[in-house]
């Protein structure tokens, strides 16, 4: 209506009308593709969870948690692998958390934009995305080959190297969120800087720092590649970290490649346990962050 009233040149109006249609089609097309991409992602996540539940739930029995790994047909469990994972992940966090925390403090409170701090931040970010199998090879060369045997300690060190950069990143980010006025208040009371940092800043940011620790646990608990050459795996119950040690991901890897029905079943159930654990930690952390912010 407006085109016929205002335009004295009908040809031009027609052209612009067809262009408007074209633009609309283009927009619809892009919107449709975007919906499709989003649906594919949701479908894949759904498919992974569905596959794990379908194949893993039937094997979720009490003996899985009470018996150690056994030969095919021997009715074994995953108790030693679960325990091994807990021990190695725990020690990895004990080793990695102090290093990550102190480095994060250095970056946020001391280094800031100095050349050294920038280098440390850069290297930490690189380690965050470094191929985990290389970390495994590195620890093999440093801790396994010279000592002559695989050990749970070596596995923990490999996992600690992977866990540390996550905690460096979250600690620095969270400390930077602490208001300057809190630091000034501490200093005005005559507290030395290290006390201000540890007892005011870190305490104020402890929720966020804990988030980093949880994310690091979730990340390393599912790692397989760095453990293959360090803690190797062990089919017997063992709490001795100086010896080869089983872990859930490595046990899954060993069983998933086998042709035995009961091993496959345990691999799926183990996979379900690892994934549920990791996803639940992630959901708790992310819902917690959103709840805190809004």
């Amino acid at each position: 209506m407006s085109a016929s009233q205002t335009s004295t040149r009908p040809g031009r109006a027609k052209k612009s009308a067809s262009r408007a249609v074209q633009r609309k089609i283009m927009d619809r097309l892009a919107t449709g593709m975007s919906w499709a991409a989003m649906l594919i992602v949701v479908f894949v996540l759904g498919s992974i969870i569905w596959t794990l539940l379908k194949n893993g739930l039937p094997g979720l029995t009490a003996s899985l948690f009470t018996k150690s790994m056994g030969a095919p047909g021997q009715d074994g469990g995953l108790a030693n692998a679960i325990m091994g994972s807990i021990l190695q992940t725990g020690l990895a966090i004990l080793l990695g958390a102090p290093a990550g925390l102190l480095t994060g403090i250095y970056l946020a409170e001391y280094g800031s934009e100095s050349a050294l701090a920038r280098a440390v931040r850069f290297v930490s970010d690189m380690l965050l995305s470094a191929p985990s199998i290389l970390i495994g090879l590195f620890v093999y060369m440093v801790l396994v080959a010279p000592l002559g045997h695989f050990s749970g300690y070596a596995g923990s060190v490999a996992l600690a190297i992977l866990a540390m950069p996550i905690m460096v990143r979250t600690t620095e980010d969270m400390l930077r969120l602490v208001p300057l006025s809190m630091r000034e208040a501490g200093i005005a009371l005559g507290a030395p800087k290290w006390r201000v940092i540890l007892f005011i800043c870190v305490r104020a940011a402890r929720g966020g720092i804990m988030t980093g620790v949880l994310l690091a646990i979730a990340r390393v608990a599912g790692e397989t590649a760095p453990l293959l050459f360090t803690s190797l795996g062990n089919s017997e119950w063992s709490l001795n970290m100086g010896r080869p040690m089983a872990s859930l991901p490595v046990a899954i890897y060993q069983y998933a490649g086998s042709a035995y029905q009961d091993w496959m079943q345990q691999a799926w159930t183990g996979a379900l346990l690892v994934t549920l654990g990791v996803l639940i930690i992630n959901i708790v952390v992310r819902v917690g962050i959103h709840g805190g912010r809004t």
Partner: protein
Amino acid sequence: MDVSAKPPAQMDGQKHRRSGGFAGDPLFKMLVMATGIGVLLVLGAIIAVMSIGGFPAFKAFGPGFLVSAVWNPVSQHFGAAAPVFGTLASSALGLLIAVPLAFGTAFWLTALAPPVPAAIIGMAVQLLAAVPSIIFGMWGFFVLVPPMAHYVQPFARHMFGHIPGLSALVSGAPFGTGMLTAGLILAIMVMPSITAVMRDVFTSMPTVLRESAYGLGATRWEVMRQVVLPWSRQGVVGGIVLGMGRAMGETMAVTFVIGDSNHIGWSLFAPANTIASLIALEFPESPAGSLKLASLMALGAILMAISFVTLWCSRILLARGEAQAGKRS
């Protein structure tokens, strides 16, 4: 953030001595600085150890190690060409699939979705990133491989097998495993991190730019294509390069689906290997001190070099993108 370049005036000396005020500050500073330097040393040690470990292989085969596609433990001849090719090809294939997916999802999250669904789907994408690598491997092997073998590969051969030029891409027996399956798995695995970066750079654009484009009557796609994308170009490229770095180092998932065959070819369906998958599979059969182990370490050194250079590029691009965002907003 450096609050007190100078220590605060020491009025109450006794109190400070009790709390370690005089010695505490320099000590604590030294402690955190030493830990920071420790992080640098870890990377330095990784680089040194991988280089030293791989040195016998570089010495034995010379520069030919890089271009030889032989991997023969019997005759003790090892070359890096096939796994290096497999690593680059599978990652490139993965990115080819992941980038449109990630872009579509980021577009949906930032421009199309209402806040609550956007939060839920954003969370789902992050959860996908958290799924352990080995789970992707199992899922790929038991869920993705059968339909690839029964439907996708026969269909592709039927469609493209007669066309010269394309037939090489689809040749080979339909095993289900192979280069394309590995690319698909890698795409799913790196897509969340690319999406996260894209989403961040898209939302970091000042709202006023977006609003003025809408005010001029632009459609949502035109705003994305002509305003948001040019504005956030560097960050987007940085995110894609980051995805590339991640894809090249992926081990467990690729090991399950790539089929492990040491050969270079154009077929999307032929089994291949990557540096990481070869190390994971061959390492247990490599005795300490053997030439094979040295060759695997040398491959590790190559992977380290490729992925660190890639990650370095992505950091620079992302940092530049951030600096630009800060300057313009």
